[in-house]
């Protein structure tokens, strides 16, 4: 369970998140939608403390990350993140990308990490790329490797920060298919995305955020057919065309 209590974030004079209260129960697939600059990326980055909230509390499975001397690094081991720019380690092979953190952070034996790593590579359809370097892969392939890297930590929560926004259009679906496949499992997922089709298909819950406030919070059906705010309707009318 992810809990955000009265979370505020300021960047200088810019008030990016305003008193955000949000609870994501275990196993939920939450999609966060919002125009650019709305604070949605900042919001998801607060969930693993890559952004420190200016005030408020972030609690993951009962552990308060915003507390003094909180075991942030330890909690991050079970809260994996997939980034817009993939952020694979370019000096490591695909398989090494998957095994580095499990081995050095979690103390998993190298052979075991490689075995599970190969299984996750197969799952994202890239078992033949284990020995390739990231620069040799397409964007879509790199993002699928990044997902496998996240999975190889055996996380309880998966955070996706605009996972398809940096991809060429023809590669978006291959990545979404992998994420949709994962959504069928019990893992908690939070996805920031502009992919409305994905939100409809995979989300249990959609929140719409604008100017640092959560304006809509409900099922995908509620969001697409019964939005309350004018701001949301305007956004949908633009994005759904």
């Amino acid at each position, binding site marked *: 369970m992810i809990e955000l209590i009265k979370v505020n974030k300021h960047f200088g004079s810019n008030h990016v998140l305003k008193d955000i209260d949000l609870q994501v129960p275990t196993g939920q697939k939450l999609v966060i939608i919002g125009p650019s600059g709305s604070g949605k990326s900042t919001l998801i980055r607060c969930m693993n403390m*890559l952004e420190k909230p200016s005030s408020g509390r972030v609690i993951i499975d009962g552990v308060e990350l915003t507390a003094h001397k909180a075991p942030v*690094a330890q909690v*991050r081991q079970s809260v*994996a993140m997939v*980034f817009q*720019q993939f*952020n694979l380690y370019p000096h490591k092979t695909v398989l090494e990308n998957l095994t580095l*953190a499990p081995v050095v*952070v979690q103390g998993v034996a190298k052979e075991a990490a490689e075995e599970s790593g190969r299984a996750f590579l197969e799952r994202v359809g890239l078992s033949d790329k284990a020995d390739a370097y990231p*620069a040799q892969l397409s964007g879509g392939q790199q993002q699928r490797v990044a997902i496998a890297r996240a999975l190889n930590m055996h996380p309880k929560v998966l955070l996706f920060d605009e996972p398809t926004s940096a991809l060429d259009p023809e590669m978006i679906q291959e990545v979404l298919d992998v994420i949709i496949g994962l959504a069928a499992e019990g893992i908690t997922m939070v996805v920031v995305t502009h992919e409305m089709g994905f939100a409809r298909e995979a989300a249990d819950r959609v929140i719409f955020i604008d100017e640092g406030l959560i304006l809509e919070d409900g099922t995908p059906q509620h969001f697409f057919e019964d939005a309350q705010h004018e701001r949301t309707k305007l956004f949908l009318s633009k994005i759904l065309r």
Partner: protein
Amino acid sequence: MGSSFTQWVENLGLMFSEAKWSSLFQHFDLVWKGLGYTIVAALAGLVLALVLGIVFGVLSASRNRVAQAVARIYVEFFQNTPLMLQVVFLGFGLPIIWPQFNVVPVLMVGIIGVGIYHGAYISEAVRAGIQSISKGQLEASLSQGMSYVQAMRYVVIPQALTVVLPPLTNQAVNLIKNTSVLLYIGAAELMYVSKSIQATYYNPGPVYLVAMGLYFCLCFPLAFLARKLEERAEASAGSGQA
């Protein structure tokens, strides 16, 4: 015009006369010994400079303001004062203030001097190297539960190394040449030995020409390596993804 040219050749002949060469060759064992001291000073100085450079480079690339300030002061002080003054201070000033420092052998004093001086330059190269690695690399590492030190060790520094290696090699070249200032504190390295041989036998021509040749032999392979590394770094930067 013609006569001044003849004069010039004649002077050159005097400067490099057979007698002057032979007085050098008779004491060439001193030259070898001096070269040995130079190599020892350069190697030890480089090790010290690397350690200081990595430590202060990581500090100045960190987000900690105090660490940044400490690194800044170190770099600015040693980059903006002459090496010769620093070494002379270590050799003659410090032992007055702190007499215990007198027991430190003069070669060691020189090693400390060039090590600290070049550590400041290497620190800047290391900082630039770390900062050339995208923030996403650190974030990805931290998001996987790595500590800052683990992220540096396994992810950021190995990548920064390709960026840092060419300027690092250039610093090694400069460091070798700069060991010549140890002359001023009386460490018997190549420059000191050359100076004392020519002062005794009045043969500066052959002595300094040979010294120059020896320094060149030490430095040129490194400079060549630096250029190759630079070409390779550029090539790999070109093939990398956006």
